[in-house]
């Protein structure tokens, strides 16, 4: 109990310090003495310290009764104290002064002890003192050494490990060797005292001197001389069990040694796996740039490296060559593991497909085409420019003889030019944007059909000799009252009127007419009104009888263009998605050609009559071989913008397309008489240089003359 108290009050080491000084026995006796004396002191002295009160009261429960005995003892103890060392007496002094600790004598010699008790030390953290000594004086904190100093001191001091800082008393205590021993013993849960012997030598207190007989007189049993039956039984049991197989032994550990695995593999040719086995492709072998010391030209400059940052991540080069001046300075490659891992992933996660490595010249992919020089003549360059129109030229047409050309423009004029010279022969002010102009295909009849707005004009160009003029005038004679009669009966789709301004006939339609096409004999011509949703959109007119009739066919789509067969009585109507071919004599549909285009815009028939081309607004050109199939034989994507018109040459195997992108393509399109041979199409030339105007781009009808 005493010791426990001591431990609380005073630090452990100092306590043990004393122990080492005095022997145990003496200490114990000392303490008992102290207790007594303190008790006495308390009873004697009036000024009992509050700290020791509790204990003294416990002991001195009945004070009066003990007094007599106590006195006698006191006397004895006093004597003993006197006899004993001064320390004892001093200890008692200390008690009288009311020190909380029933500490031993040597303690107060050291320094004033802190008396604050077991309170959290942080209460004193900010104070200049650490507590109070017995007399109530403040104990000042010692000046702390700076860390460096203390560290240096510690380093120099070999006994540093034994030093402990006592926070309560603000001092450093050094443990002695014995104390360390005790601490160690305590840590091992052994008896703390160093000289305590847990295994003392056995002292045989029994006296054997007069023992004449053994303790037991029994004879040695037989079983000590014969083998054990039980053991034999057990052995037999085990043996049987082993024989039965109920006890098994661990097999000796197998060493997986390698052996000659492919001893005879000469006969094998196939893989066991019957599915096609594709070995993994080998990794790419490194080039010069991966060298540790590549040629200087392989190392990108700093600017180039910086520019990599601007690239897309996929495009960025994965490996940037670096140069090391000696092999010694090559560092470990940081991505080694990662690249190896990625390879592993490729090996087991990627489907393996045998791909033909196309080791071919890109040129060989292109079709073998005849030399362009052999396909001459074809237009190469701009020869003449016909100037005069103020608006975009929407349509041109060349006369049958090839001497004259008519052009219609969005500025509302129609002009006739001499092809060879570029001279403007005549000019009509029509007043409305012209959609289409076409010459009558007969060489003697110089009539020009012009469509603008809802009208179609048949103009006498005034060309040719007297006889021809006479015929033309007869043809263009029209009775206006007759037409008015018809209007009275039913609403006609077309009215034939005499046009006095331009010396011709005006055909008034109900809707806008976009195109006019002549029959090869020059008597009939057809007009197309795409705006007419009903099936009346295509009309056929007869010039000699001044008659118009509707086509009795259901078109299933908006008609865009129409055209006549060059030799037979067949009529083509191009709707937005299909081309319908009708026999006019039998009045029935012969064929339906599926263009596969989104919106067809123009159609032209080969002079042979079996092939036709269709241009579309998405810039595609379809060539149909009508004997072959109803699908296009070839689709050419040539123009980036709408194709406005397509046309065949009258005599040469050429065709052309013109488009909003102000270019015209000229193709060679040879049709062979041998039916087994497919038509040959060769792109020949791009004609550029048309000016753009009106935003929509100049549209020109390109007709090849020579």
């Amino acid at each position, binding site marked *: 109990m005493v010791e426990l108290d001591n431990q609380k009050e005073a630090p452990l080491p100092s306590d043990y310090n004393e122990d080492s000084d005095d022997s145990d026995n003496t200490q114990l006796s000392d303490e008992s003495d102290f207790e007594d004396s303190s008790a006495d002191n308390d009873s004697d002295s009036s000024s009992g310290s509050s700290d020791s009160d509790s204990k003294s009261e416990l002991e001195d429960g009945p004070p009066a009764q003990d007094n007599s005995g106590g006195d006698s003892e006191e006397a004895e103890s006093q004597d003993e104290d006197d006899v004993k060392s001064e320390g004892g007496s001093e200890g008692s002094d200390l008690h009288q002064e009311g020190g909380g600790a029933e500490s031993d004598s040597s303690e107060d010699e050291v320094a004033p002890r802190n008396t604050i008790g077991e309170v959290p030390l942080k209460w004193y953290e900010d104070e200049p003192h650490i507590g109070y000594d017995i007399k109530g004086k403040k104990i000042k904190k010692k000046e702390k050494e700076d860390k460096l100093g203390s560290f240096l001191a510690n380093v120099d001091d070999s006994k540093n490990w034994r030093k402990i800082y006592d926070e309560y008393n603000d001092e450093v205590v050094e443990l002695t060797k014995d104390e360390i021993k005790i601490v160690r013993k305590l840590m091992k849960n052994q008896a703390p005292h160093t000289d305590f012997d847990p295994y003392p030598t056995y002292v045989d207190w029994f006296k054997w001197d007069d023992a004449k007989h053994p303790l037991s007189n029994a004879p040695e049993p037989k079983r000590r001389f014969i083998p054990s039956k039980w053991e034999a039984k057990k052995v037999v049991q085990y043996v049987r069990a082993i024989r039965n197989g109920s006890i098994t032994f661990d097999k000796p550990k197998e060493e997986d040694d390698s052996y000659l*695995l492919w001893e005879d593999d000469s006969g094998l040719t196939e893989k066991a796996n019957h599915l096609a086995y594709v070995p993994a492709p080998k990794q790419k072998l490194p*080039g010069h740039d991966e060298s540790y010391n590549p040629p200087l030209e392989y190392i990108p400059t700093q600017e180039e490296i910086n520019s990599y940052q601007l690239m897309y991540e996929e495009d960025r080069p994965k490996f940037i060559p670096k140069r090391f001046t000696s092999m010694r300075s090559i560092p*470990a490659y940081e991505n*080694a593991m990662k690249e190896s891992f990625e390879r592993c992933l490729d090996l087991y996660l*990627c489907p393996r*497909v045998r791909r033909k490595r196309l080791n071919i010249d890109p040129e060989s992919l292109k*079709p073998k085409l005849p030399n362009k020089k052999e396909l001459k003549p074809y237009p190469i360059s701009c020869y003449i420019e016909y100037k005069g129109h103020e608006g975009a030229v929407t349509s041109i047409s060349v006369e049958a003889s090839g001497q004259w050309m008519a052009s219609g423009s969005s500025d509302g004029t129609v002009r006739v030019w001499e092809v060879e010279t570029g001279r403007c022969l005549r000019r009509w002010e029509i007043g409305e944007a012209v959609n289409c102009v076409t010459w009558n295909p007969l060489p003697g009849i110089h009539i020009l059909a012009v469509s603008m707005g809802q009208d179609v004009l048949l103009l006498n160009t005034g060309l040719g000799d007297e006889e021809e003029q006479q015929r033309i005038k007869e043809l263009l004679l029209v009775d206006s009252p007759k037409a008015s009669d018809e209007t009275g009966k039913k609403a006609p789709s077309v009215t034939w009127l005499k046009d006095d301004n331009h010396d011709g006939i005006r055909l008034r339609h109900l809707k806008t007419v976009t195109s006019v096409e002549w029959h090869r004999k020059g008597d009939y011509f057809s007009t197309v009104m795409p705006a007419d949703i009903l099936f009346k959109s295509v009309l056929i007119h007869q010039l000699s009888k001044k008659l118009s009739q509707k086509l009795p066919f259901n078109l299933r789509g908006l008609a865009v263009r129409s055209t006549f067969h060059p030799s037979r009585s067949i009529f083509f109507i191009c709707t937005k998605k299909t081309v319908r071919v009708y026999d006019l004599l039998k009045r029935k549909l012969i064929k339906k050609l599926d263009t596969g285009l989104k919106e067809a815009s123009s159609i032209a028939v080969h002079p042979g009559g079996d092939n036709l081309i269709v241009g579309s607004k998405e810039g595609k050109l379809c060539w149909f071989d009508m004997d072959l199939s109803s699908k296009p034989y070839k689709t*050419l994507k040539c123009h980036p913008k709408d194709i406005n018109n397509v046309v065949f040459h009258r005599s040469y195997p050429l065709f052309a397309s013109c488009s909003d992108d102000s270019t015209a393509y000229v193709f060679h399109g040879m049709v062979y008489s041998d039916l087994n041979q497919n038509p040959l199409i060769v792109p020949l030339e791009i004609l550029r240089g048309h000016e753009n105007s009106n935003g929509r781009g100049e549209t020109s009808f390109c007709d090849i003359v020579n």
Partner: protein
Amino acid sequence: MPKHYRPAGKKKEGNAAKFVTRTQALRLLQINLPLFRKLCILKGITPREPKKKFKGNDKTYYHVKDIAFLHHEPLLEMHRAIRVHERKIKKAEAKKNVERANRLREKTPKPKIDRIIRQRYPRFVDALGELDDCLTMVHLFATVPAIEDKKIGVDLVTECRKLAHYWQAFIARTHRLRKTFVSVKGIYYQAEVEGQTITWLTPHALQQVVPDDVDIPTMLNFLQIYQPLLSFVNFHLYHSINLKYPPMLDPELEALALEIYALIRYAHANNKPTIPETSQLVEPEQLESKLDAPEIQNKKSELRLAQLQHQLPSNEPGALMNLVEKAAGEDGEEYDEETKQCKNLFQNVKIFLSREVPRESLLFVIPAFGGMVSWEGKNAPFAESDQSITHQIVDRDAQGHRFLSREYVQPQWVFDCVNARIILPTENYMVGRIPPPHLSPFVDYDEEGSYVPEYAKTIKHLQAAARKEVLPLPGVEKDLEDPQNLLAEGIIDRAAANQAAKEKQKLMVLEKQYHEDLKKELQGDTYTSEGSTIKDKTSTEVIHTGESMKVDTAMLISRKKRKLLEAMEISNKRKQNKYDTIIQRKKKLDEAQNQSS
């Protein structure tokens, strides 16, 4: 009835019958994904690409037969057994029955890989053909630090190291090494074994970092097949040259991390009795008494002999090696032309390695090309002070004594010599100088549009010169460096010829164009003279060039081909761009050099 409708109970048809997705496969096999992956890795099963992906593009498809192949795999059953066993161990551990747990752990069934290897590579050549990845991986794991957390055990690393060394020893012994390349990533080696070209990458002998984003278990799965594969291959190869496998190594050398040297020596020593011993010895009187013995002794005692010889004066193993080399060279029955050439490259060279050079790699390369090599340290065959040393490999300025009898060169010299197959003049590789660029031997200069660095040209000249010479001795062909002289002799390398031809073509094209232009101009003149009323056309109005033709033909071909053509054009352009940038840089460098000089 819609086309896709399949009545219940009817069999699937087409792709749906032939392929299963990965999830379906897992359900079929009743295993989890990691095990499935492991099996796929071990059995070499990869996903397939069905023509029609019936479950969507995001799925992985396996062939039904592949899955059936896995289904019948004994390995599957084995893994189930392992799982059961692991549960037992866990239970024992939970009951704190350490003894039982340990015993069980030792008894864990181990899958046997040899059958699978035989299945995957029915012929030895097949195995050799796919050895690249295996070797690269094993060499990588030989340098990886053992990390128990990531299940990279010490045994694994040492095993990998051993296997790699065994392989290298075989290659060096049989002189099968063909090309080497020191790159930033490591050192590439290319060997030719039984007609198969095998390339592998060895990391630099520095500590590898194991990044966190690498899935080590996957790599270990691969190692599980690669290790036995390499071991079996090694066995086969050693068997083919009458050597015991695994070889017994001198423990002393092994302790010094010189396994490769020990192995090479072992291989040489053990092969010796097959060779007639009538050759000239370097030190005949010293060796003769020892050499009589092995003739009569059988194979088992040979190793001891080798070890005995090892304990002899330091010079002797080298001499022994040399002897073996010469003897083998004389009979030379098994060696083809190239191997012979490789073997005799460093024949007259005796090399000493300084401390700072990559010893492991050089100890492999130099003996593979018939050279004698020693190093600083214990058990080295000859000491630095040996007067017969011709070259010393140094990577920094030597502080100590410099011998006048030898040349001090940088390690790159060895690798460049090997790639060029001649002994290059050493003055460019002297210590303290920046060596000439180290070029990759894997670049094919004959390929169109490839750039030929300057140093490649000089090496070519040197090679040509060496071929002409009767005695390819070092330091003789210095007078042949003059390129004009070579040209006069008619030695023009192919690349140069190509270049010349190309330039000629270019000139011709230019000339043609010029003529055409001229013609056109003339025509234009006639036009203008003909039609006086016609306006002059300007050249800007109509542009027709060669390009238009190109555009035209492209639209005639089918879309598939057109796309292909475009892709080809793009890739060609990219190649050309690369080439152009290199040429440009070269030009700039040359300019800078000219300015400074």
